[in-house]
C-alpha cells in the first residue's frame, strides 16, 4: 500500500473501461475517473460543499431488461437441449450483455454543488450506494460546517459575487464539425445499397463485391474515429448514441454472420461459397443487415443535419451594416 495515501473508498462505482469512483479523505471527497492507463481527480472540500442533490430515477427499464434476458436464457437452454450449440452461444451473448446493462442501468442521479460548480457524481448510479455515500458525506460536512437551521433554510441565499470573467458554460466541451460522422453515415448508406445490390442481382462483378468490402472495413474505422472524436464534443447526444448503436450493431452482426456461416458450413457442407450465400437463412441475414444499415445511415444523416441546423446563428454585425 502507498504510505502516503489516506483515502478510503466510498460505496458506488460505475463504468466498465472508464470507471468512476468516490474516495474520502480527512477534509475532502475525491471523485476519480479512471481509464486503464490514467486517472483524473476532482476534489470537493467539505468546507466548500454547499448542497448535495439526489434524485431517484424510474426503474422500469432494468425490470424489462431482466425479463428479456431471462427469456433469452431459457431460449439458449432450449437450443442446447435440442443440440444447437452454435445458436445457443449466439443467444447467450446478448443475454449476458443484457444482464450487464440491466444491472448497470442507473436508478439514481446525484450531484454536488459548490460556489463555482454543480457537478454530477457518476459513481452514485444505484440508490442503495448513493444513500449510504450521501449519509457518510453529510456527517463529514456537518462536522466542518455544522447543520443548516430551519430559519437559515428559509432565508435568502446571497447572490454570487461577480467575477472578472464569467465561467464558460461547458469549459471541457469542444466544438466539432462532425466530418467523420457525415462520412460514416454516408458510408453506411452506401454499404447498405451495395449489399442490397449484391443480394438482389447475385452474381455481380467482382469489383462490386470488393467495393462493398472496402466500404465495410472503412465503416469500422470511421465508427472508431467518430466515437473518439465525439467525446467531450458539442455533438447532439442523439448523434453520439447513433454512433455507439452502429458500433454495437456492427459487432453484433459480424458475430452473427460468422456464427451463421459456421453453422451452415457444418450443416450443409457446401462445396462452393455461392451455395452458402444462396441459402435462405444467409440471404435473410444479409437482407436484415442491409436494412439496418439503411436505417442507421439515414437516421444518422438526418440527426446530424438537424444538429447542424440548430447550431447555425445569424451573421455577426460588421461596422458596414449596422443599420
Amino acid at each position: 500500500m502507498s504510505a502516503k495515501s489516506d483515502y478510503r473508498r466510498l460505496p458506488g462505482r460505475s463504468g466498465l473501461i472508464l470507471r468512476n469512483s468516490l474516495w474520502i479523505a480527512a477534509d475532502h471527497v475525491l471523485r476519480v475517473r479512471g481509464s486503464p492507463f490514467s486517472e483524473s481527480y476532482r476534489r470537493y472540500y467539505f468546507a466548500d460543499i454547499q448542497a448535495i442533490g439526489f434524485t431517484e430515477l424510474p426503474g422500469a427499464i432494468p425490470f424489462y431488461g431482466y425479463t428479456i434476458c431471462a427469456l433469452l436464457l431459457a431460449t439458449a437452454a432450449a437450443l442446447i437441449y435440442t443440440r444447437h450449440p452454435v445458436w445457443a452461444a449466439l443467444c447467450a451473448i446478448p443475454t449476458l450483455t443484457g444482464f450487464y446493462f440491466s444491472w448497470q442501468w442507473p436508478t439514481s442521479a446525484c450531484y454536488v454543488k459548490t460556489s463555482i460548480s454543480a457537478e454530477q457524481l457518476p459513481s452514485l448510479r444505484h440508490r442503495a450506494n448513493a444513500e449510504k455515500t450521501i449519509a457518510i458525506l453529510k456527517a463529514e460536512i456537518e462536522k466542518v460546517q455544522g447543520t443548516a437551521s430551519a430559519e437559515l433554510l428559509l432565508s435568502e441565499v446571497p447572490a454570487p459575487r461577480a467575477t472578472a470573467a464569467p465561467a464558460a458554460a461547458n469549459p471541457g466541451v469542444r466544438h466539432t464539425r462532425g466530418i467523420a460522422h457525415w462520412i460514416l453515415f454516408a458510408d453506411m448508406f452506401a454499404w447498405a445499397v451495395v449489399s442490397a445490390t449484391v443480394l438482389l442481382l447475385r452474381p455481380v462483378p467482382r469489383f462490386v463485391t470488393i467495393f462493398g468490402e472496402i466500404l465495410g472495413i472503412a465503416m469500422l474505422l470511421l465508427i472508431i474515429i467518430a466515437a473518439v472524436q465525439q467525446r467531450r464534443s458539442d455533438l447532439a447526444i442523439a448523434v453520439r448514441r447513433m454512433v455507439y448503436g452502429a458500433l454495437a450493431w456492427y459487432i453484433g452482426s459480424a458475430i452473427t454472420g460468422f456464427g451463421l456461416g459456421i453453422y451452415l458450413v457444418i450443416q450443409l457442407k457446401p462445396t462452393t461459397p455461392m451455395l452458402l450465400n444462396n441459402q435462405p437463412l444467409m440471404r435473410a441475414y444479409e437482407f436484415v443487415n442491409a436494412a439496418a444499415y439503411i436505417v442507421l445511415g439515414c437516421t444518422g444523416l438526418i440527426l446530424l443535419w438537424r444538429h447542424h441546423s440548430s447550431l447555425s446563428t445569424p451573421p455577426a454585425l460588421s461596422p458596414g451594416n449596422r443599420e
Partner: protein
Amino acid sequence: MTQAPEQLSCSKCDAPIPNVDWNREHAFCMACRAPVSILVFPALYAKSDAASAGTPVVEAGESSCFYHPQKRAVVPCDQCGRFLCALCQVEFLGQNWCPRCIEAGSQKGRLAHLDPSRTLHDNTALALAILPACLLWPTIITAPVTLYLVIRYWRAPSSILPRSKIRFVIAGMLAILQMVAWIWLVYFLVHRR
C-alpha cells in the same frame, strides 16, 4: 415560498426545487414527480469576503513583497522564505505559499493535493507484458520495453489512491520470463546446427 437566486434543481428534469423542500426526507420534484432529496449546508449562505489586493508600502523601512515591490509584505513564504503581500499569499496545507512554489511543486509532482491526473505506469507495463504475449512474437520487442518501464517508473508518483506495486512486480517477472525464453530459443536455434 421564496425562489433562491442560486437554484437547486432536480437531476432528472432540471426543474428548480423550492427551498421549503430542502433538507426534507421525502420530497418530490413538482415537474416530474421524481423523489428528490436536497441536502443544504451553511456554506450556501456564507458571504465570501473580497480578497485583499495588498496595502502599499508607506514607510521607507517597511518590508515589501518580492513580487510586488510597491506593496507591504505580510508573511514570508514557508517554502522559499520570500516576503509576500496579501495578494500573493496563498494558504495551502496549513502554511503560507507563494505562487511560484505552488507552481514548481505541482510541475515536479510533489504536491499530490494539486494533481488533477496521474498516469498509471504500472498498468501500462502490465498491459505491455500480457497483451503482446497473445501473439508471441511481439514480446521480443515488448519484453525489454516492459522491463525498462518497470525500472524507470518504479519510484515515480503513481495513483494518489491506495495502490501496491504488485502490478510492477508481475509485469517485471513476466518480462524477464519472456526475455529468458527468447534467449533460450535463440541459443537453441544456434546450437541445433
